[in-house]
């Protein structure tokens, strides 16, 4: 990951540093996933009781994790944008699109929150928990898959609002016109 960081730094240094121009390879995502898992584990996000303790207001560990994470990310991403940084794999400017407002957002968020409290895990952390050897996570993973599947079957053929899980408006080569952003 140190190599990624150094190369990303070079790529985004701007003038003269030629970015790759092609998308990140699968192995990069696999390694990023492993690193993310390590950080989630160290942050306590793979320990069931931190969730219960948070919602009972007994231990705000995970509140700090989310708060400090969002704040750090906000500052660093603002810096990247201000500096006109370019994506290392892909070459476009760092210009992430936020998820759009949609009608189901709040009820969906509440439903997800109820499941979060019941299972003591998120869609991401539960995968890490399974890797750590926590057997309960397997039931939750099966449930998330089932719920997702169910939604997909019900949404089929319906005119649903775009999820726009689109990532970077400038994931295309820098020379190309920015693709239409479904998020806006």
């Amino acid at each position, binding site marked *: 990951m140190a190599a*990624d960081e150094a190369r990303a730094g070079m790529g985004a240094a701007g003038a003269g540093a030629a970015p790759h121009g092609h*998308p990140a390879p699968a*192995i990069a995502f696999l390694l*990023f996933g492993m690193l993310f898992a390590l*950080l989630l584990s160290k*942050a306590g996000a793979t*320990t*069931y009781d*931190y969730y*219960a*303790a948070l*919602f*009972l207001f*007994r231990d705000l560990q995970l509140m700090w994790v*989310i708060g*400090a994470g*969002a*704040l*750090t*990310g*906000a500052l660093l991403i603002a810096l*990247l944008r201000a500096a006109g940084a370019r994506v290392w794999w892909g070459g*476009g400017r760092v210009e*992430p*699109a936020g998820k759009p*407002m*949609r009608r*189901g*957002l*709040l009820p*969906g968020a*509440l*439903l*997800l929150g109820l*499941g*979060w*409290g*019941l299972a*003591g895990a*998120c*869609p*991401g952390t539960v*995968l*890490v928990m*399974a890797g*750590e*050897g*926590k057997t309960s996570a397997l039931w939750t993973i099966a*449930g*998330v898959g089932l719920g*997702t*599947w*169910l*939604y*997909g079957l019900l*949404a089929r053929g319906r005119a649903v609002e*775009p*999820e726009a899980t689109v990532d*970077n408006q400038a*994931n295309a080569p820098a020379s190309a016109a920015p693709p239409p952003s479904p998020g806006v």
Partner: protein
Amino acid sequence: MGDAAAGALQAAGDVWPGWLGGVAIGVFTTLFLWATGRVLGLSSAYGEACGALGVGYFRRTDQGFGQRWRLWFAAGLPLGGAVAALLGAEGWSVQTSMGTLYESMLPAQDAARAAVLALGGACIGVGARMAGGCQSGHSIAGLALLNPPSLVASIGFFVGGIVMVQGLFALSGATL
């Protein structure tokens, strides 16, 4: 009193202070975006998996699906979890316990507990698709992008979690 909770949480071992874990995750989110141009997010990987298994909705590119990288990223999580456990003080082991609080709040019988966890998971799965993302996409990345809908979603996640755990705690008669 917080002694029981503190005891339960000490069992987690070598966990970093919350602020440090948060800063590390914030740096990670930024590097991930910078390197790959992708915004962090996990729940749609379940959609990609369903798409690969033939659910047509999850192949719709107009819905933001059809992104194979999500499966690779998600596949890294259990691997990283195994590494985290191996590197930890206690090493990797099969753990059936969910910790003091959840053990006292959820049914003890295996089948009942499995059903409860699967139900919780199903709520997570449906809810994440309705909301267009989960905690990683809305709370970590979305808040870092200062995206208003993600703030609404994050508040919704917390309200749901508080209602459920306060309710479970009261109904189960568990004590702290």
